[in-house]
């Protein structure tokens, strides 16, 4: 992939690949192009070169809405819930594009996040930070996506909540979803990653299994603070 916001390219030729039942983590310093890469995958900026494939199908030319329909779901870092809607309405909007019965999926999500079920009729904006993050992820899952992308899901939450969120993500992964996470909390994220990329200056600087990168001296020194 190569692209940017017009003007200079922010990402150049970086490759990212993810499979079902896999968590891929993208880490890197500020301004490395992490968010840009994610926006490119979502279709919010267009690519100059390269392509995006989903199950072998080229989706590079699709609009963001069509990509959602094709099976990509995204949880933004901020403003990721409908704060003035109830939890259940958040889920229903998540399933906006689906024509079939969504009740079943809602129940599945209530099983995954039991707290959601208790608060189903509460406004999402009134929930605690961790619960809001759960609403955000749940909303994205309502399309039954093939790939779930999370932008810094643990930014600004307490370590306990962070741990919980990562646990849920593993559960989701096990249900057959491919997961891409962009993270600043690199150490913790690498711990749960099946595969990880370190982005620097818009390029893949390192890539490998999560543990492998954690043990890599150079990566440790430059990004994980020793």
């Amino acid at each position, binding site marked *: 992939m190569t692209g940017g916001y017009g003007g200079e390219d922010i990402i150049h030729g970086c490759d990212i690949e993810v499979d079902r039942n896999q968590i891929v983590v993208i880490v890197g310093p500020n301004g490395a192009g992490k968010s840009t890469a994610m926006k490119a995958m979502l279709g919010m900026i267009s690519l100059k070169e390269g392509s995006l494939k989903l199950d072998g199908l080229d989706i590079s030319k699709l609009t963001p*809405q069509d990509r*959602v329909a094709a099976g990509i779901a*995204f949880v933004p870092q901020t403003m*990721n819930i*409908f704060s003035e809607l109830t939890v259940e309405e958040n889920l229903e*909007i998540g399933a*906006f594009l689906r024509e079939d019965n969504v009740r079943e999926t809602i129940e599945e999500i209530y099983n995954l996040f039991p707290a959601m079920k208790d608060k189903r009729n509460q406004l999402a904006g009134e929930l605690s930070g961790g619960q809001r993050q759960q609403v955000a992820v749940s*909303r994205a899952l309502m399309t039954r996506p093939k790939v779930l992308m999370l932008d810094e899901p643990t930014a600004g939450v307490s370590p306990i909540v962070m741990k919980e969120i990562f646990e849920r993500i593993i559960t989701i992964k096990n249900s057959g979803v491919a997961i891409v996470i962009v993270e600043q909390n690199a150490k913790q994220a690498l711990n749960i990653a099946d595969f990880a990329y370190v982005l620097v200056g818009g390029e893949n600087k390192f890539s490998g299994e999560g543990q492998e990168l954690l043990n890599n001296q150079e990566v440790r020194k430059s990004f994980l603070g020793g």
Partner: protein
Amino acid sequence: MENFEFINAMVLLANFVIVPALSYGSQLALATLSLTIIYGVLRFSNFAQADWMSFGTMATILFTWLFQSAGISAGILPTALLALPFAIIVTALFCLLIDRSVYSFYRKQKSQPIVLMIVSVGVMFILQAVVRFIIGPNDRKFFDGEKYIVHALDFKNYFGLAEGLTIKSTQLITVIVALVAMISLFYFLQKTKLGKSMRAYSNNEDLALLSGINPEKIVIVTWIISSILITTAGVLYGLDKSFKPFTYFNLLLPMFAAAIVGGIGSPIGAVIGGYVIAFSEITLTYAYKKFFVYLLPESLEPSGLMQVLSTDYKFAISFIILVIVLIVRPTGIVRGKII
């Protein structure tokens, strides 16, 4: 005898304060709802909204004339109610035309709300010209059908009271139509998929896009709903009083006042705001002298008119309330969007 005095006082109050305020409040509430929905979804204060009200009412009057000349009538109901749906369609189509040719450009540019507001001033000028060009600037009455449900004289004779109660059919029609419109709107917003997606879009535009909501569809639905509400409000107001473009333009400020007092962006707030403004306008300018004459013993009878504000200031009351709300509780009664 004591009791009769009390009943007379209450009838007086109902006749001159409660009934008129209820019907004006319903008209204002509908108009404010349309303003608030545009604000909530399209994110700008639409200065042209009062002139959309003129336009919709004008369209209704034209259809009414057409029906009347064709000999079609609604019996005891005003013909305008038959004309209303057709006028709504015309108004909505014109709204969409203006949206395509004017507003959509700025939406794509992601212009700031203030720019859209200035654009709406331009639309305001054009609508005023169109309405005055087609139907002229003068006062027009277009009410037909049965005028009274309860007439003061009959009421007096029937109950043997000194005070009479008049309920015009337009007042009852106003309250019923407004109730139906509000209930349908709230049902639509709370219970239907389209309504929920509209609220979602209004709440968080980017996330709505990520959920696959098509913004253009939301925009179209918004203009249609706004047309329905504003045309209905205008027709009810015109049936109750009369239609005059300048009077309608002057309703813009009570509408804004109601929207802000209720909590801008909140539909429930809009309804509450509409009634608050209407009741304040009427209760604060009513001369309570006669009311107290009934209630108080002769020795305590008031000498003045017992009026808080002269009727000259009726028009200014909504702004005074607006200013007070802005100082004391800028988010409005129902907490609206963040200022």
